[in-house]
């Protein structure tokens, strides 16, 4: 048995090292090893339980009519707890791994609108299947015939107005907009159409200014 929970930890570290916008290659080998570790813990636990049952049966046979002895010695109890906690921990870390990958796939559907080939190559079969099903469900929801009839992936935040105000987070120079030119500098505020602000918001050049028209007229 390897160091307890080390593999699951490595799995998550690997995913974390890839940043939020990308996926790490699905590490099938490590996942299989974690499962085998869980199996090993399970078999150990089963061995202890069967041993306990055997002792219990012997005790019952030896002293028929007497009250059966239910007590387990401290060492056995601790060992059982340890194995059980290890199983739970590995399970938890595996679920985090799967969930995080799933969230990133969803994020890609919303921001990139399609799964890039490079990312697709890093997914396992079931992840690709999940992505396709999610994409299909979203598509249906956005369709005119069965859903709301608008492309919800255009905005990262539901727009309140056709124009938005944004504030520069880095000096990225001049940008060409539909109404003219604007220079994005740290701390400058720019008003522009919501759809043109979206790419700038996505790449972190600007941030949205929470604007309300007067005192709370336009705020939620």
């Amino acid at each position, binding site marked *: 048995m390897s160091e307890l929970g080390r593999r699951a930890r490595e799995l998550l570290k690997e995913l974390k090292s890839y940043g939020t916008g990308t996926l790490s290659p699905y590490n099938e080998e490590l996942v299989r090893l974690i499962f085998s570790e869980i199996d090993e813990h399970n078999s150990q636990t089963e061995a202890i339980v069967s041993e306990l049952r055997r002792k219990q049966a012997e005790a019952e046979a030896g002293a028929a009519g007497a009250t059966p002895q239910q007590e387990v010695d401290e060492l056995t109890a601790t060992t059982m707890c340890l194995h059980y906690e290890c199983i739970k921990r590995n399970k938890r870390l595996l679920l985090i791994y799967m969930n995080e990958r799933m969230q990133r796939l969803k994020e890609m559907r919303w921001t990139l609108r399609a799964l890039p080939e490079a990312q697709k190559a890093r997914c396992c079969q079931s992840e690709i299947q999940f992505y396709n099903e999610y994409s299909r469900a979203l598509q249906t929801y956005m369709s005119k015939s069965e859903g709301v009839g608008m492309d919800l992936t255009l905005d990262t935040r539901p727009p309140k107005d056709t*124009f938005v*105000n944004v*504030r520069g987070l880095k000096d990225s120079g*001049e940008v060409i*907009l539909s*109404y*003219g*030119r*604007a*220079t994005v*500098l*740290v*701390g*400058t*505020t*720019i*008003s*522009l159409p919501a759809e043109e602000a979206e790419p700038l918001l996505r790449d972190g050049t600007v941030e949205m200014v*929470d*604007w*309300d*028209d*007067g*005192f*709370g*007229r336009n*705020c939620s």
Partner: protein
Amino acid sequence: MIVEAQYLLQVYGAIKNDCRGSEDQAVMCFAACTDADSVCASQQLMNLFNREGIFFTLIPVDSYEEVKAHCEPLVQAEEVKTVVLINCGATDDIRSLCELPDNVRIVIIDHHRPVWHGHNVEDDTNTLVLVDEDDPVPKASVPVYNPNEQEEDEEDSGSEASEAEKDDEEDQEAGVSGDGDEDEDDLGVRPGRKRRRRSTGADQEERPAKRSPEARAQARAERRKLAELIDAYYSDCNGYGKPSSLLLFALVNTAQHDDNFHLWCAIVGLTEQLLFHQISKQQYNTWREGLEQKTHVQADPQEELDNEAANGLLHIPRQKVHVEPFDDLRLTLLRYWTIEDSLRYTGYVAARLQTWRQKGLDNLRSLLTYMCIPLKHATTAYKGLREVYNSQLRAQLPRFAPQHMLAWDSLHLSSFRLLYKHEEISASDMVFALLGLLTDAKPKEKSWHRAAFNDASNALHVQRNLNVVEKGIELAKRMCSDVVHECGLMITSGKVKGGRNADYRWVNVAESNGLANPRFTHPAVLKYMALFLRDATSHRYSSNDARRPMVVAGPPDEGGMCCVVAVHAKHISGNKLQKNPFARPFIETASALHIFQQKSAFENTTFHLRKEEVGPFLDRLQHVVKEYTEEAKRLEQVAAA
């Protein structure tokens, strides 16, 4: 062209037409990021632009060099463009400074005075300076610009032949651009716009083809008179005009976009000017009364009727925020401090009682005791105090303050407060919160002044950024206590130069412990400090006429630049300009020492110098001011004779 407030809507219409008729539809706005008035004015303008669907870029700036750098792409611009300057640009020839072409319209909303007289050209619809009729320096007091004044001066010294030649040249030019019947109000006409400063029609008609010696002498006398007028204008009209936020409130009101938010912005801008002694109390009251009427309009009586009609059903009020007039105590951040601390760090009280000394503190505690406020409660947070102590403070202060050398008139003012749900904030608290945020210097961050400006802008939206307001208030508390402690230390250790009868007093913060405090590099904090030092030093001499103007040189910032500010000595009553006598001495001193400013502030009594230049500057300033005083005395004697 100087535009009066009655034409605000036409100016706004011209901006809209420029935007719609041009390929580049965005308005470029620059706002000075050193005062609260700019924050309020820019928020009002942004709000208006947002409502009307006008695209804009707002750039907070702290010097003319920064404005120039941002305007560089416009130098070669061919399309029509509008640049709006908030609290900057009025005192200088901004077009030449930024080398802006004629197709760029400049609209200036600035409270700094004097307005550069070159802006006072009726035909120039490219550069519009907004000055209200009730401004302390109205349009009528600005000398009319004569674009030929320099040439004519040369002409005086030249030969007659050269004069005739020049006359011919001028006649030719007048012939080319002599169609000077452009309608003053027709600001929207853009195509083929060209500045016609030279084509003042009246001049051309009256001017003879060749002047006789009498006519030349008369012209020379007129020019001399005009030069004297200009000289007097630049000597006597240094100070502050109507707050930009008040002017913009007039615009949004005329455009029927006004609401409580705009009203609050105007109130904050106005209160800042009073707290910084930039306007007289009479002038404040005149403008305040106008705003008070607006609060009644904005209060919306229909809301009360709706409330009654709702009969307990879920009701959403129309105005989530309520602004109302009230009589406020002029104690700094009282609601967010303890009574003792608020009294201790209020500039007026601290200067009078010298609260940085133990004796002063004892006096303060004596006042509290007279007012029957136990010291235990005086040191408890005001918000946690029982109502009885609050009312006791208000009831007893008018009675016992005069016994402790404090005038009741200086301890209260008619002001406004903003009510939002269960929160309440007074206009003066808001000013201090904005100043706290604006002056929160972070030397390691490159564009901290822009971040500070944006924080202050956010703080104005109290209903969603109450945490930012609270942060600002904490910073303001620190600022006030730092100023009182540092200035107290400077006074006790004799760092304030100039004696009882000096023309002015001055201090170099770099020679004190304040050197390490980055807050003291900000001009607004230095001005606050100067006002406090001015009052505190005069009270040390226990004489009413011991008040002198104050010059404060700040410590060097990370770039090695020090800020020098000056404040006037005496309050001028009536709706008059609070004259600052240091504008010209500063310029003369700098030119005498051949100091080239690397960073030009927006007002002429704030100078940024390199740290090695501060010492010589302060030394030289003494001689220059002495010369000015002697000259003034001589003129007085001549006038008396």
